């Protein structure tokens, strides 16, 4: 019988020496330097003109959307927003390397992946304005998107919970024989949660075709990554759990795209998890409730601004002769107008009618919820002016 525990064959040593952190350092794949030049043409992924342009416009669109929505929050039109400025290459580049049937389970800063899948400006707006066209029916804060048709799992706020779930979802895909994988995004902060350790270990042991994509962007709210972990980042943990791992420059679309393509191939062919650690930087505030000037310097931000992923990729496009300044400007102009129009439209759409409040708690509302709804409606009918969002539409 084969020995089940391969550690029983471990090589012996007679030297009392500890393996130190720093002995093994995982390098970072970079295929595009800061001037948009390819560093190794042989390893550069094949990206056709259409895909390349779609990546570029999606990144620019998302940056516009972020700017506009941060503004809308400041004007009090929405309650909350969370920008991904600086990290566009990580999420858009990785989404571009997937098949549309692959499931995306994201944290909350991955609007780029969703936009790449084709989520429309109206859809973004309806969710953010919590109106009755929001597929979440106005139950979650702005930015908690989800779309079944686009294979984008609805976002949940508690951090890290999607990591173990992604392992399970991917196992389901494998068992059903679907030619698809799951990608799971999370931050380096969320990688401290128990769910990270549980999820990556489960995926490794149960051979789940899942891509764990960590956006290591330097901060978890105000906590810098030095206070989040010791050791060689999140990538080394992948190795520790027996998971194939790659670290990439998260501001380099080519590197992110190439790594994700490869990860997908391996996950699918070998039924195993792959971990990608994308080294990037959160140029935006953590969210509209945050003020980063309290915990990091402007010069640090400027250093990263110089590594702007959008500019870097556009320089590459330009080198290929694929960058059309006029067309880009026209696209941006059109998107700006579209975003503003959609915003104005969505803020006028009413919230869901009050009957909705007891829906989706269970498959059908049990007696106690039905009773509570009857009481609530009678109460609203008595004080209609106090519940203006719903009182006009009582059924």
């Amino acid at each position, binding site marked *: 019988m084969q020995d089940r525990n391969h550690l029983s064959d471990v090589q012996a040593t007679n030297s009392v020496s500890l393996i130190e952190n720093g002995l093994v350092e995982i390098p970072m794949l970079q295929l595009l330097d800061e001037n948009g030049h390819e560093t190794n043409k042989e390893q550069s992924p094949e990206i056709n003109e259409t895909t390349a342009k779609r990546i570029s416009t999606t990144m620019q669109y998302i940056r516009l959307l972020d700017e506009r929505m941060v503004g809308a929050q400041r004007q009090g039109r929405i309650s909350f927003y969370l920008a991904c400025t600086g990290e566009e290459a990580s999420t858009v580049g990785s989404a571009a390397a997937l098949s549309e049937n692959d499931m995306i389970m994201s944290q909350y800063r991955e609007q780029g992946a969703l936009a790449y899948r084709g989520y429309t400006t109206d859809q973004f707006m309806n969710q953010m304005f*919590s109106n009755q066209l929001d597929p979440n029916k*106005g139950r979650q804060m702005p930015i908690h998107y989800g779309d079944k048709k686009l294979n984008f799992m609805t976002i949940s706020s508690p951090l890290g919970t999607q990591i173990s779930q992604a392992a399970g979802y991917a196992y389901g895909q494998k068992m059903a024989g679907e030619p698809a994988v799951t990608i799971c995004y999370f931050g380096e*902060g969320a990688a401290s949660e128990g*769910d990270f350790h549980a999820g990556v270990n489960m995926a490794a042991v149960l051979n789940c075709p899942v891509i764990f994509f960590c956006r290591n962007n330097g901060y978890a709210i105000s*906590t810098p990554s030095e206070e989040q972990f010791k050791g060689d980042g999140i990538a080394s943990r992948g190795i520790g759990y027996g998971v194939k791992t790659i670290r990439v420059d998260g501001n380099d679309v080519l590197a992110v795209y190439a790594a994700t393509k490869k990860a997908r191939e391996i996950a699918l062919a070998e039924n195993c998890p792959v971990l990608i650690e994308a080294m990037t930087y959160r140029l935006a505030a953590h969210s509209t409730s945050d003020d980063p000037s309290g915990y990091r310097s402007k010069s640090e931000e400027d250093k990263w601004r110089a590594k702007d992923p959008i500019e870097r990729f556009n320089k590459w496009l330009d080198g290929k002769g694929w960058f059309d300044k006029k067309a880009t400007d026209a696209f941006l102009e059109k998107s700006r107008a579209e975003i503003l129009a959609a915003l104005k439209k969505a803020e006028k759409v009413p919230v869901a009618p009050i009957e909705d409040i*007891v829906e989706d708690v269970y498959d059908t509302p049990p007696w106690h919820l039905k009773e509570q709804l009857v009481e609530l409606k009678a109460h609203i009918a008595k004080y209609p002016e106090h519940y203006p969002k719903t009182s006009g539409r009582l059924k």
Partner: protein
Amino acid sequence: MAQMNLLQAINSALVTAMTEDEKVMVFGEDVGHFGGVFRATSNLQQKFGKGRCFNTPLTEQGIIGFANGLASHGSVPVAEIQFSDYIFPAFDQIVNETAKWRYRSGGQFTCGTLTIRTPYGGGIAGGHYHSQSPEAFFAHIPGMKIVIPRNPKQAKGLLLASIRDDNPVLFMEPKKLYRAAVGDVPETDYELPLGKADLVKEGTDITLLAWGAQVEIIEKAAAMAEEIGVSCEVIDLQSILPWDVETICESVCKTGRLLINHEAPLTGGFASEIAATVQERCFLYLESPIARVCGLDTPYPLAHEKEYMPDHLKTFEAIKRTMDY
């Protein structure tokens, strides 16, 4: 005395506790240099150093497990869980460990010095992951105390008492009131007793009971009821566990009626426990069934937050129903 908001009062309590006892340590996500996402721990790191006020990695189970170990050593941890909605990853550590450490070791070891601070509650357009009121889950575990202040003066006095109490305490802060509740707070070191309710207003016809941010709501309903000639006694429970059964029952025996208001869902909420106990002890004094005005049995919504909330109007209607029974 100084004018402070609830956050400043909590900060003042932490400064007092850390100054007076060097074993007090304050930690959690973002609590270090930044002072926490709500700024309750502002300047503590500057004052007391990184050894005693620090950021932790982003892991609630880690924070409470760590705090349990630290407390069992005899240090005095004050751990922050950034939002009470995110206390659940630490549920195992709290329920199975914090609360039972003393019991399972025959009193040899304890986590009695631990205080867990966490903002809770709605009314801030936070949707269901920034609005929950999970006190009832923890009230079901023997071995913990649960405290909820409603104003700055209480917050400081109760937090100091919690930190110094020889039992683990879950200290829940109504985040809706963090900046909204402002009042006089003694700059001195003082404690308010745990397990005691606060009689906010005397009355003769009905007892209204709430805690945290909901006290304001029942006060508002009481004012409406006074206008139609109903005299309300208003009580802030302050401590969910152990709760002040004496004060409540005394009041109910006087007024003959009880209404309990809380933000958490009705079913299995702490009002159920109070109602059961009061009917057992005051049955013959009751003139009408005990009323509960609570959140609906749904997750906490966003767009329908106003409708969901057990607000002053729902409370006022329930007062009338109880009076007319």
